[in-house]
Structures are given as C-alpha cells and as structure tokens.
C-alpha cells in the first residue's frame, strides 16, 4: 500500500546501488580496453585509422548517452544478438566509455614528448615495445586525473539505465517515489548515495591532478 519513506525503502534503494557499482566497473573495464585501442588508432601513423578513430570518438561525444543506450538496446536484437537488459546496458555504457576514454588517452599519449618516441626508435624498439614500455606508462600517469574524473561521469551515467527499466539506484528511487509519494526525501536520498560513491573518486582525481602539476 502507499506508505511513508522509511528503512525498508532505504534498503531497497541501497540494493539498487549494487547495479550502479557493477555497471560502472564493468563499463570502465571493457570501455577502457576498447578505448585504448581507439586511442592507439587515433595516434597512429596510419591516416585511415586516425580518421576512423576520430569519427568513432565524435560519434560518442556528439550524441546523448541516453540515445546511445537506446540504440544499443534496440539494435542488438536486430543484428541477431539477444541479451539480457543489464548486458545490453553494460555494452552501451562500455561503448560510451571507450569513446571518452579514447579521447582522454589520445591527449595523454600526445603529451608524452616526441623525443621519447624518437629515442626509443633509435634504440631499435618496435611499435609494440615502444608503446608498452616507453610511451603508455608515461601517458598513463598524465591521464590519471582525467581518467578518474571520467569514472565519476560514468557512475552518474549509469543513472540513465533507470529510463530503460533496470532497477539500479535511480530506478529504485523512482519506484520508491511511486509508492511513497515522497519524492523530496527519496531523491535527496538517491542523490546522497551517488554523492557517497562519486565524491571519493573526485577527491582522488583532484589530488592526482595537484601531484601531477607539482611534478611539472
């Protein structure tokens, strides 16, 4: 029955946060792997690869995440892939993350001084070794603040799964708002839970940024 917002409702919302965390981690992992490939393509010497990577990034940065999720959700069955809703959402979020992480990492790779690559080449290192042992470790350090910052965006982005019906944090809030008719309390609670998840990441990100700037 219609009831007041209390402990059981809070528990239900917290339970939804499981999905928020799971989706964020999965999307970061898979999006990161894919994003690295795109970033490498974007910084490669091969012109068509650079161009395709540019289009890929533009595509994900130029359309709303919500629409990306809907297209994946409705598009997968059309190409004959039948997956559960949560898997479709993780796929969509991963693709989204790959576009943004690729752009962040492109910047970081290009921020590594050209001389490093030249020196590595002079030492006779091949592309893979040059990237793996020389460029990427430095780029990684440079990219850390922005990468962690993007994780915050990703966590917030999972909220859109609510609009496709997955009972994550925001959808759990919607359902509780619908049965308690106390949206103020419900959404304040939901907001605080996101805040608790995101703030540590934000703090880590800005600490990393200060450390990076201090080292020059």
């Amino acid at each position: 029955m219609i009831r007041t917002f209390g402990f059981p409702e809070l528990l239900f919302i917290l339970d939804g946060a499981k999905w928020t965390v799971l989706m964020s981690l999965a999307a970061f992992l898979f999006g990161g792997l894919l994003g690295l490939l795109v970033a490498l393509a974007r910084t490669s010497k091969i012109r068509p690869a650079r161009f395709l990577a540019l289009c890929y990034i533009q595509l994900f940065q130029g359309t709303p995440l919500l629409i990306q999720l809907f297209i994946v959700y409705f598009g997968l069955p059309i190409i004959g892939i039948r997956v559960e809703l949560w898997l479709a959402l993780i796929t969509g979020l991963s693709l989204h993350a790959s576009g943004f992480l690729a752009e962040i990492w492109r910047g970081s790779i290009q921020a590594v001084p050209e001389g490093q690559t030249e020196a590595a080449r002079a030492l006779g290192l091949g592309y893979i070794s040059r990237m793996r042992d020389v460029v990427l470790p430095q780029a990684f350090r440079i990219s850390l603040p922005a990468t962690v910052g993007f994780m915050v965006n990703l966590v917030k982005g999972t909220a859109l799964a609510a609009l496709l019906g997955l009972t994550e944090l925001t959808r759990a809030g919607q359902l509780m708002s619908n049965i308690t008719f106390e949206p103020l309390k419900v959404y304040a609670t939901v907001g605080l839970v996101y805040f608790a998840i995101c703030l540590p990441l934000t703090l880590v990100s800005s600490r990393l940024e200060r450390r990076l700037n201090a080292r020059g």
Partner: protein
Amino acid sequence: MCITTGFKKIVAGALMATTFMASAALAITPDELREKGKAVIGVQMDQFPWGFIDEAGKNEGFDIDVAKLIAADLGVEPEFFRITGQNRIPSLTTGQVDFLVPSMTVTAERAQVIQFVLPYSSNNITVWARTDAEITKNEDLGGYVIGVNRGSAFEPILSDAAPQGTEIRGYEDDATTVQALLSGQVDAIVGSKTYGIVIQNTGRGDGYEAKYKVADNIQAMAVRKGDQEMLDYLNDFVTRHDAELDELYLKWIGQDRADLPTELPGVDFTGKAGN
C-alpha cells in the same frame, strides 16, 4: 514551445497507416518453459495496485498474483522482469521476456506489433481532477493543463479527445502522473479508474474526484506475434481461471470484475487472422 494536440493529431493519423512486421525468431512454447522450469514474465511495478514494490522489496499487486497463478498452472517458477511504460512492448518483441502480464490497454495499433491474449481485466479511462475544476466532458479539457502517462494508451486517446491546443503533459508512468496532479503541476489527469485508489491512499483524497469516463479500458496479457502455442495456452488459462481472476480483482481493485469482451474491432485474439 508546446507541441500541441493539433499537431499530434496530424502525426498520429499519418503514422497509423503504416504497417508492421513481426519476427518469429524468438518463439517460445509452454513446453519449452516447462523444460526450462521458469518463465520470464514482464510486469509493470509502477502502477499501484496493479503492480508495486512491497515493504520487503518484493513485487506485489494484482498482476503479480495473476502471473504467479499462471506460473503455478504451467508448473514453472515465475521470474519477474520489471518493465516500464516506454519499454514494455520492446521488451517483448526483443525477447527480454517470455510474455507480458502488464495491465496493458488493448489497442488496434498495439495489436499490429504484439499478440494480445483474451482480456483479463478492465478499468475505465477516467478524468481525475481537483474537486473545484469544472470538467464534465471532453470539450472542457481545453481550459486546463492535463497530465497523462505518455507511454500508455491513454495518451493517444487523450490527444484525440481533447480540443485542439489543449496543453498536455506526458509523464513516465502512472504514479508520476498522479504525483503531478497531487503536486499541482497539472490541473487534471487522464488514466485508470484505479488512480482513485492511489489518491485515496496518499491521504489527500478529499481534494480530488473522478470527473467522467473517457473510454473503456480493456486490458490483456500479450505474447509475441507467432507464438501460437503460448497464445492458445494463455487464452485457455484466462477462460479456465475466470473465478480466481474475479477473486483477485476484487481483492486488489475492490470491485467486481466486469464482463469482458472476447472480440474487439481491429484486434485478433486467436492469432489466426492474416495467417
């Protein structure tokens, strides 16, 4: 900045003429469900008392009881998939669920995309408004801001019924629509007769009343087009469990279940027309 009803009507007219094609690739039969031992049933959990989350965080309501009854009859475990107004038809056509028990209005447009089972409940489409709002007929709607669940069948019905230029606001789901009325964001809402139960339950029932009935609202379960065995089974279920469904309806809706039609214009409940 408003997308007006007049415009909506033109669009709706143009769109209804289009045809749809269905895919039978995801077909499922009652025997296959028994073999799997479970059925994934799409239920809508944001429309009290048809479907809602109880204090233990479990799915509850009229539709849940009906779905459990079906699962027991089939001899399988029910697995509930919570649909939203926006995704309930895609969740069926894309194979996220085996069938829907969603208190969904039967319309001829929807019947072109999904296969309706014989109706199992009804629920008048009603205008709810503040007691002091002077609304007794469709023409009166033009003077007010009207809220409606935009993924529902109520929305096109409202668009057709309301005079040109009526300001219509579409919300995510039934509860949010009621919320919009209670918080004063709209003057009136168009939707289920059972919105009244929700309004009463919030303790704010005195200020609001049912104004008039806009249309019938016949509700049915749905399966994918071409899932003939599922359709035959559920049609048989609805007929066989008449008494239990009456009982559940009385328990949740607080009224006797009305006599339901077995034929509606533009809707084929047998799955055999057109084949």
